[in-house]
């Protein structure tokens, strides 16, 4: 193939990516969109193989078979509740692949004794750095999500200072490698530091801030691919990588906005490290909470005509989505309209709750976004809060001293009755007490989300 034909084929694959992503804007066309994007990938791969000739086939066939087997096995076996972990690992493998390509290119320049052009050397540095950070950052995010490592922020005195020193060191190393790329020692040091930096940047971030971290790592994996495109003078990589980079950045921004926090605060604020002194001290003065039984709740449902269910991370932990669907179906059968209110940061990754409820066969027209459903709470008989806490905390609206003040929340407290199903009175990750629990129209039902919902189902059925 002539270089022009190759370029046109890469352009075709980029167009297919864009069309595929565009079709993700509606649930009706999304499955086809994904297939079209996959086709774009096929075009890019075939083009590359034809363009490259027949060198190294044994490595290619072996690598593709091995990678496909691992990828397919993971994709088909993973539980929907573990989707954040899966995406974290996929981010990591994309990032490390880009870094490895950049490293391979640098080593082959070095073996030829030929110095890469300035832009190529810079791209090699960026790809190695971003790819390395993405790899170890994703592994730490995975360990936190899978609870193989404590979800609380890990902090130590002088952490910011240490990170700043390492940051300066990274900049210096990058300049060294980019200006004299054939000196390999600084390059290997850079690899080591990039890997270390990924760990250090993610350990101080709390479990509930993971939606931001995953989005950001998603963006990094794209930017690493983009940088690799500059290394190899390949437009397919530049376009594909920057699409993903943009996508991750947008999701990052949406997640930060939904928590009313800046990206800097999420990354370096160690939010949730320790309960905030003032808020925690005030907690005891708010009075006591009365626990109710699922049977008490069933009585309220017998007089209700509308219900909004607010799921949170607790639903995912308890794997309660199928039980919740059963409850929603039963309520509808009894003539109670039932919908779901989805907060953008509910769960551990963007859209986490939607995927779980879709898995349980809840039709997606019942999954309503925050801005759309908030005006409906005052006309709603029952709001059922299921393992959510900070996203329904009215202090965010009214209490200027609260650490979560200003965060957009679901206005469940404005419903006629509020049921809160919760394991215990422990405050949410923000370490902030929730006045909702002490309201007169709030009934707390303590227990595991799944167990309580199942009891609720049988109580409502009998009533």
């Amino acid at each position, binding site marked *: 193939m002539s270089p022009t034909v190759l370029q046109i084929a890469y352009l075709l*694959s980029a167009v297919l990516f*864009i069309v595929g*992503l565009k079709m*993700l*804007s509606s649930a009706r066309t*999304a*499955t086809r969109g*994904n297939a079209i994007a996959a086709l774009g990938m096929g075009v*890019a791969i075939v083009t*590359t*193989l034809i363009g*490259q*000739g027949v060198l190294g086939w044994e*490595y*290619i066939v072996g*690598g593709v078979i*091995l*990678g496909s087997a691992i*990828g*397919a096995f993971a*994709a088909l076996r993973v539980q*929907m509740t573990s989707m954040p972990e*899966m*995406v974290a690992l*996929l981010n990591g*493998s*994309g990032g490390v*692949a*880009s870094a490895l*390509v950049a490293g391979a*290119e640098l*080593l*082959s320049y070095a073996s030829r004794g030929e110095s890469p*052009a300035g832009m190529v050397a810079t791209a090699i540095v960026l790809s190695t750095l971003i790819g390395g950070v993405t790899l170890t950052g994703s592994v730490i995010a995975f360990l936190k999500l899978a609870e193989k490592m404590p979800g609380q922020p890990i902090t130590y005195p002088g952490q910011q200072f240490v990170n700043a020193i390492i940051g300066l060191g990274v900049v210096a190393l990058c300049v060294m490698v980019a200006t004299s790329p054939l000196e390999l020692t600084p390059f290997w040091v850079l690899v080591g530091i990039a890997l270390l930096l990924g760990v250090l940047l993610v350990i101080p971030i709390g479990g509930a801030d993971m939606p931001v971290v995953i*989005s950001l790592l*998603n963006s990094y994996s*794209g930017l*690493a*691919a983009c940088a690799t*495109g500059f290394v190899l003078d*390949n*437009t*397919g*990589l*530049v376009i594909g990588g*920057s*699409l*993903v980079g*943009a996508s*991750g950045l947008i*999701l990052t921004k949406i997640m930060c906005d939904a928590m009313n926090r800046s990206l800097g605060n999420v990354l370096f604020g160690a939010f949730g490290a320790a309960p905030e002194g003032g808020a925690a001290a005030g907690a005891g003065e708010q009075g006591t909470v009365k626990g109710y039984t699922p049977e008490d709740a069933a009585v309220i449902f017998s007089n209700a005509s509308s219900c909004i269910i607010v799921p949170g991370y607790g639903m995912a932990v308890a794997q309660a989505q199928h039980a919740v669907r059963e409850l929603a179906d039963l309520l*509808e059968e009894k003539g109670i309209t039932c919908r779901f209110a989805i907060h*953008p940061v509910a769960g551990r990754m*963007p*859209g986490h709750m939607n*995927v779980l409820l*879709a898995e349980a*066969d809840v*039709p997606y027209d019942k*999954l309503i976004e925050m801005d759309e459903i908030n005006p409906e709470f005052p006309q709603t008989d029952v709001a059922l809060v299921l393992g959510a806490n900070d996203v329904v905390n009215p202090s965010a609206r009214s209490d200027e001293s609260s650490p979560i003040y200003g965060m957009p929340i679901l206005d469940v407290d404005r419903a006629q009755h509020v049921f809160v199903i919760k394991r215990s009175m422990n405050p949410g990750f923000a370490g902030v007490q929730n006045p909702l629990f002490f309201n007169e129209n709030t009934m707390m039902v303590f227990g595991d989300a799944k167990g309580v919902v199942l009891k609720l189902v049988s109580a409502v059925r009998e009533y």
Partner: protein
Amino acid sequence: MLSDPAVALTVLVLSLFVGIEVISKVPPLLHTPLMSGSNAISGITIVGALIAVTSDSPLVSTWFGFAAVVFATINVVGGFLVTNRMLAMFKPKQAQGGDK
């Protein structure tokens, strides 16, 4: 083609804008599949991996290339498959058999 920095920068900036325009229209309902799907697209680095493994290079870079092929393929195959699996679960009301 990209060896001209101006051309390279043009491609980069324009595709970032296209990305922002297209992705902003994806509803929160589909944010998880968007993330895994776009993740699969970042596996485009497989193109780089294939080039790295085929280029006439020393053994250590070939092994780097081989590892890159494995990781990028995991990213591509795993990403597209898991996205497809998730999207297949999103159904509107009328499409549900057992809905009463």
